[in-house]
């Protein structure tokens, strides 16, 4: 099912949760809404679901107006952040709920309900937990129950609100792959809300980066990581080092010194030079425009990073740079920095 969000605005009192947001989600896609808390991503998801109504704008499912339909009638599967399993029902009854509340012609006979629930429990690999209650399950198992319950109503749209937020790192990784696999098996369009960039980049076909109620960039995981459209996206996705620069007469300056870097079309005025730490090389201080003093060197896993305090900049600026293996850096050493890849944005 294609989902069209057109010019949606939503305010909570004076706070604009969504500011004229437009987005198209194609049939069968898995899209991640990625952003920090307060960016409006959950509000957008809840508006698509029908749990929240926009102040203005449109939501269309396959071209048809969805706002005139309540959440009951939209037939969307919603997986809640803390699962919201029915605590007084066992796993089987939780999954069966969506089938049991049907009325009239849609009502299934008991045998059909049992068959469908068992099939779903098998699909999410928790057949053996059918008699348990939510309180007796681990986080990962609850997540699977929530998913099976949402899938019971055969939704064409699956909406997931921070589905892995409450799980520990190892289970999270495992479930992530499994969810991706499940999405490919089912005829469903999925929208996932997350604040975890790794999750979004690994899972999604397309990533929608949101900040302050607006969409900053929509693109494939590769695009948003390698080619961030705005400084916000660069900051939010991946690690970023930032230098406060200035563009004067088409050249880039840092603290009054010409850097010899391409201003990338940014107009004259203050600018921010952004780069990934692993795209910055250490160089001979006398031969590079950016130089500074090593404050400390930290090792985590296979990488080593140096905190470098820059010379000549206004105010203390500390950046991280990758230290090649085999190079010893004592704190206090003067080093030069050479960004191999970088982006320049007007500040």
């Amino acid at each position, binding site marked *: 099912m294609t989902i069209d969000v057109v010019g949606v605005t939503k305010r909570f009192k004076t706070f604009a949760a969504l500011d004229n947001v437009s987005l198209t989600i194609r049939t069968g896609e898995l899209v991640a809404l990625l952003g920090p808390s307060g960016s409006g991503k959950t509000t957008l998801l809840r508006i698509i679901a029908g*749990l929240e109504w926009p102040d203005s704008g449109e939501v269309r499912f396959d071209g048809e107006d969805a706002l005139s339909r309540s959440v*009951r009638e939209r037939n969307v599967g*919603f997986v809640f952040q803390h699962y*919201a399993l029915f605590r*007084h029902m066992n796993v089987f009854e939780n999954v069966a709920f969506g089938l049991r*509340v049907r009325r009239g012609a849609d009502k299934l006979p008991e045998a059909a309900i049992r068959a469908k629930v068992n099939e779903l429990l098998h699909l999410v690999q928790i057949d053996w937990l059918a008699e348990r209650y939510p309180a007796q399950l681990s986080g990962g198992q609850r997540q699977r129950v929530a998913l099976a319950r949402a899938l019971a109503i055969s939704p064409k749209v699956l909406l997931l609100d921070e589905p892995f937020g409450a799980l520990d790192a190892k289970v999270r990784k495992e479930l992530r792959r499994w969810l991706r696999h499940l999405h490919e098996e089912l005829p469903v369009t999925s929208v996932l809300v997350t604040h975890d960039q790794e999750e979004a980049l690994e899972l999604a076909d397309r990533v929608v980066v949101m900040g302050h109620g607006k969409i900053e960039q929509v693109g494939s995981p590769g695009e948003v990581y390698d080619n961030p459209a705005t400084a916000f996206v660069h900051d939010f996705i991946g690690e970023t080092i930032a230098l406060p620069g200035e563009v004067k007469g088409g050249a880039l300056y840092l603290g009054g010194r010409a850097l010899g870097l391409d201003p990338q079309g940014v107009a004259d005025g203050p600018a921010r030079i952004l780069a990934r730490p692993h795209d910055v090389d250490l160089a001979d201080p006398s031969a590079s425009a950016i130089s500074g003093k090593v404050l400390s060197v930290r090792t985590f896993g296979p990488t080593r990073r140096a905190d470098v305090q820059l010379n000549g900049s206004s105010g203390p600026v500390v950046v991280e740079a990758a230290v090649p293996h085999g190079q010893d850096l004592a704190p206090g050493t003067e080093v030069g920095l050479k960004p191999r890849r970088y982006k320049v944005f007007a500040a």
Partner: protein
Amino acid sequence: MNALDQTSGHTVAHGASEGLPSALEQSHTYATHRGRPVRTEPRAVRIVLTVIALAFVGLFIGLPLVTVFYEAFKRGWQAYVAALVAPDALAAIQLTLIVAAISVVANLLFGLVAAWSIAKFEFPGKTFLITLIDLPFSVSPVVAGLVYVLLFGSQGLFAAYLQAWDIKIIFALPGIVLATIFVTFPFVARELIPLMQEQGTAEEEAAISLGASGLSTFFRVTLPNVKWALLYGVLLCNARAMGEFGAVSVVSGHVRGLTNTMPLHIEILYNEYQFVASFAVASLLALLALVTLIAKTILEHRLAEEDR
């Protein structure tokens, strides 16, 4: 790639060689301290405090309870039963049961509605409503009774209207029920509000997103989630409704066999020096208290279990 492997290999080896002795050291420290309870008071102080507490409870709660039953059975079984089957006593018991039944059902419905709206929705005046629900706890029951007399009595605000339609409220069943409802008003709502607030609205949203109607959501999700707390509130409400004296005393008029509830009947019997009969009826209320206590303990256990 090679360089990376070397780095990580080095880190692991380093961590392992250092981590092992420190872990051993820690478990050693734990072992020597284990088994020594963190308590500072000497044994004597603990015993004295426990004895004082037990003596206090025995003197002020245990002894009166025993006395009630002792006085009731002073003249033997026959006198006890005779006191209970006396027409006035039976009428009082019947009236008390009717009043409690109506008040409990009324406050059950009100408590559910109030707790549901307060916990699941935002609306203006919410804080005021929560405060208002607590009012009966802070107002003397006698004042509550008096308010109803001033409203519905023969000199009251609605007197002319009530007379015209020949409706009797004060010195009749409706007045007693009204006063009892007022006094027992907060029990169910107070029990449900915090629980419902804690449970939030996520399960209801889930139910509706799965296609359930509002009513179906209420009966399949909301109500089962609070059933033990609801029962607990009803239990306390019932105990208070049957035992209420002050408010009912003001509005009842003390008509024997007609508007006397059990507490009022006990007082009358006592004032007429019919001690055995008085304590016999009182023993029923005491028995109710004991049953309530046991049921309350069971329910608290169930509530704690659900909380896990």
